[in-house]
């Protein structure tokens, strides 16, 4: 490699490409290092991105590979063949669906256009440490020196772990997402969901789909394909899995909610990726060291709001703030100088929402949310809607549905918990 750079960025994902783009724009000599054949080839997500923070991180988002703007949101509580759905239709336009592989490639191309040097097919093995500070990166027998390094290596963060800056990931830190992308006929999505040609649907669901384990499913409409998948929190899954995760995802595809949409479709790709889970557990003790800033999933910057996830926008935003902090450091890349990055990040919507929604993870560890309550809710609505002669009053249906399942005081306590944490 040989050349010397002002900044080396590890990983051309949403965080790294954003950092590289915003640094190159400010005149820094940047190397953006990606282990894949091209940017995006190792990236995977559920299916949607919130646009506003991305617009701030990248100019010209209107030229990005956007599939559909989400105008319809669905939330379903599932119990076997039965499910209860809440649907919201609004003006939309705040988030869009896409393939993260394409969006990431676009982000990296923006960085390259701004002057960053993209180096693909290089795995960073560890940080180059000199005189107790980060001075570049090491890949095999190659060293690449830089004044400062931005770590955007993603959720597995092997580099940080090998450098002893974070502890080894445990099941509490992460959740596993598995997805099928299914090609459908042109026009099917508009027909199925009553959408315009650039309008999209986002659908999340929980209950029996995760076999009672903390987790849930997602379904997004892309241009002419559907993304269908499942997230399982590993903390409870290590001992709680009843069958193979592939079986659980396939049961979604052929199950009552989705088979009618995908039965004429063709699977295009089967992918999996981990996401940060408990934000307090996975956040590194600090996000800056002498000569190093940590961004994106490696920094645990994923926000689970309970009914939607945000990770791509927060990653890109953190990359942008890392670039700002590097500029403001004016050559002093000590931890105390780079601390500005952590301060800006925590004061931004990313830090505020991480704090605001930190309790959601505790809520997710309540097993009743995924087992007893879906049974209760579907049982209640079944009694209200399905009758031959005499019907139920709400209170009758409720007490019958919850009989033997969960006590009234327990429900009240859990509801209070949901109210406090969501």
């Amino acid at each position, binding site marked *: 490699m040989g050349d010397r750079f002002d900044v080396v960025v590890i990983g051309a994902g949403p965080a790294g490409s954003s950092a590289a783009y915003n640094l190159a724009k400010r005149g820094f000599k940047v190397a953006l290092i990606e*282990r*894949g*054949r091209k940017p*995006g*080839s*190792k*990236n*995977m*997500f559920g299916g949607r991105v919130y646009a506003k923070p991305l617009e701030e991180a990248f100019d010209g988002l209107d030229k990005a590979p956007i599939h559909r703007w989400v105008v319809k949101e669905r939330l379903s509580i599932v119990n076997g063949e039965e499910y209860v759905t809440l649907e919201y239709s609004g003006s939309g336009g705040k988030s869009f669906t896409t*393939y*993260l*592989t394409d969006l990431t490639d676009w982000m990296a191309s923006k960085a390259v256009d701004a002057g960053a040097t993209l180096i*693909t*097919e*290089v*795995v960073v093995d560890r940080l180059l440490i000199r005189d107790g500070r980060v001075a570049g990166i090491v890949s095999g027998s190659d060293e690449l020196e830089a004044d400062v390094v931005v770590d955007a290596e993603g*959720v*597995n963060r*092997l580099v940080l772990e090998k450098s002893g800056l974070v502890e080894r*990931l*445990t*099941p509490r*830190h*992460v959740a*596993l997402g*598995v*997805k*099928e*992308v299914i090609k459908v006929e042109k026009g099917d999505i508009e027909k199925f969901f009553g959408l315009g040609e650039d309008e999209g649907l986002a659908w999340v669901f929980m209950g029996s789909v995760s076999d009672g384990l903390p987790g849930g499913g997602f379904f997004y409409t892309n241009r002419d*394909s559907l993304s269908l998948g499942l997230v*399982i929190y*590993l903390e409870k*899954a*290590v*001992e709680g*899995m009843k*069958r*193979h*995760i*592939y*079986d659980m995802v*396939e*049961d979604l*595809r*052929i199950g009552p909610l989705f*088979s009618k949409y995908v*039965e*004429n479709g063709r*699977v*295009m*790709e*089967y*992918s*999996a*990726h*981990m996401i940060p889970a408990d934000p307090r557990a996975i956040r590194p003790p600090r996000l800056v060291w002498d000569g190093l800033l940590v961004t994106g999933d490696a920094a645990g910057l994923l926000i689970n709001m309970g009914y939607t996830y945000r990770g791509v926008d927060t990653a890109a935003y953190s990359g942008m703030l890392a670039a700002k902090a590097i500029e403001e450091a004016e050559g002093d890349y000590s931890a105390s100088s780079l601390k500005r990055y952590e301060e800006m990040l925590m004061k931004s919507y990313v830090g505020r929402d991480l704090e605001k929604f930190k309790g959601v993870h505790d809520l997710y560890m309540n097993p009743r949310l995924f087992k007893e309550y879906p049974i209760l809710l579907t049982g209640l609505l079944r009694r209200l809607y399905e009758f031959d002669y005499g019907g139920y009053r709400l209170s009758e249906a409720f007490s019958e549905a919850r009989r033997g399942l969960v006590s009234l005081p327990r429900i009240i306590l859990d509801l209070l918990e949901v109210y406090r944490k969501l």
Partner: protein
Amino acid sequence: MSSQAAGERKRRKIRLEDLLNNNIWDVDPRPHIRLDTSKCRDCNYKPCVLLCPTGCYTTHGDDVLFSYEGCVECGTCRVVCPEEAITWEYPRSGRGIHFRFS
């Protein structure tokens, strides 16, 4: 075939190996995962077997059999292994999974 029979056929699961055939890999001839199988015999739950999305881990009696070729590099096996029996690296220089529509 009647339309009902076609519907039944469509509602059957796709085999995992057929699902994986939709993906593109450039397999690193040098395994990027190493498994110390001697640690697997005494492992009670063997969580890697049900949690590896691509089925890289299977059981044979008390033993765990393993292949790295279908790995999509999610890293789950390393995290869930209670015995820390898995040495897990990324495949070298652009090898491994190549996502296109994810």
